[in-house]
């Protein structure tokens, strides 16, 4: 299972490295969304770091939805699915591998977006650095949940519109926990408590994915 996971993760990351969709499409989208959030708040509010944690996670939510679609779209390019099925890979390993690849991509994007938040929304640098472990875990949990839900919608008409409907209720608790932990890191509060909750959510989604991904792959 672990070997399959590493194989699949390597495959996905190589595809990303060669196609550069993350670099030329997703990152600019993320940064633009952050700027638009600042514009929407207006000059009086935009510079206040109290809004930053929520806005960061909102932008990362949109980025995650794009990346999930991309991750599943790669599997459904012409003939890919059948070729992979013939290989007889362990579905749990495929799930873990895709989650790992998506996590790495979200971490890279998140690092750039959080830098943007420091610059444009004036979040305190020390507090932002203190929030990084919780951000890493939150994005990992979103990647695990997203890989599961992405498999649910893959291969049907209109997955891009259906995916948000299915995933947003599942992401809502992660967004709340992520925002609270980021705020706690910036302004003081029970930081460890929130990121333990997200760590538990990460393990939970990984467990569910290992259990059920095989059924979704068959469909």
């Amino acid at each position: 299972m672990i070997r399959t996971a590493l194989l699949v993760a390597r495959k996905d990351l190589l595809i990303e490295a060669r196609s550069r969709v993350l670099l030329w499409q997703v990152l600019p989208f993320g940064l633009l969304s952050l700027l638009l959030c600042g514009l929407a708040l207006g000059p009086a509010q935009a510079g206040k770091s109290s809004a930053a944690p929520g806005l960061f996670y909102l932008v990362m939510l949109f980025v995650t939805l794009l990346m999930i679609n991309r991750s599943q779209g790669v599997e459904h390019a012409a003939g890919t699915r059948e070729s992979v099925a013939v290989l007889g890979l362990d579905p749990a390993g495929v799930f873990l591998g895709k989650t790992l690849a998506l996590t790495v991509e979200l971490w890279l994007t998140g690092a750039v977006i959080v830098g943007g938040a420091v610059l444009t929304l004036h979040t305190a640098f020390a507090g932002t650095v203190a929030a990084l472990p919780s951000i890493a875990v939150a994005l990992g949990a979103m990647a695990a949940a997203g890989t599961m839900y992405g498999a649910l919608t893959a291969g049907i008409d209109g997955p891009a519109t259906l995916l948000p409907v299915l995933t947003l209720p599942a992401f809502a608790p992660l967004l709340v926990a992520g925002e609270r932990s980021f705020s706690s890191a910036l302004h003081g509060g029970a930081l460890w408590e929130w990121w333990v909750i997200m760590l538990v959510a990460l393990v939970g989604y990984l467990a569910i994915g290992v259990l059920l991904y095989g059924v979704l792959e068959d469909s």
Partner: protein
Amino acid sequence: MKLLQRALGPATLVTLLGTFIMGMWVTPKATMLDGGGDLVRMLYVHPAVAWVALYVSFGTTTVASALYLWRRTRSVVMDRIAYCAMEVSALFIFLTLVTGSIWGRPAWGVWWAWDARLTSTAILGVFVLGYLALRRANGDPEARARRSAVFGILIALDIPIIHFAVVWWKTLHQSATVLNSTGNVLVHGSMLWTLLLSFVAFTLLFVWLLRFRYRLEVMRETSQQSRRDVAVAARQREGA
């Protein structure tokens, strides 16, 4: 079996009517401290609707989805039951939230509160809409059935959270009146009997609605298949 099916409609109507009459005119109004006067009459609607939405209807979907995923019991009947029960569940979840709001405004003073029970119920409602959207997406019927079954089981994880929310956390929503952890039933006499009658009435209503929805689904699939057969036959005649 046919007798039971024929009796279902009248039994549903009789129990619903009985609940209405008992609730409106036979049961007394409550003290202002423990029931809010005439507000107590919502007790005979909201808990029963919530019971059907969360446990009966959603439970039917979850069990049917699990049976569909298990190879030994996989069949198109299980898939149909899961889908039809989820549609009925959507209706009852909507009614739960609406009746709860109507009761909450005079009792609590607010239409809505973001406490754990109400929020998790609202999240369940959104999940159900997602399930229905997933069912409407085009694709191979078997793949769609499998996806829906997996999603139906995934979102059932919200049910124990909703049920135990009033126990695990401090919420505005009150704890259970009948099935609470102390074992003391907190309502008595004609009020208790009417409450139990309302549970029976709305459960029968669910079964009645599910039966009709299931028949509709079978008719829809049959009509789709016969339309396809007619079109194929017409094309073949053209070719001959």
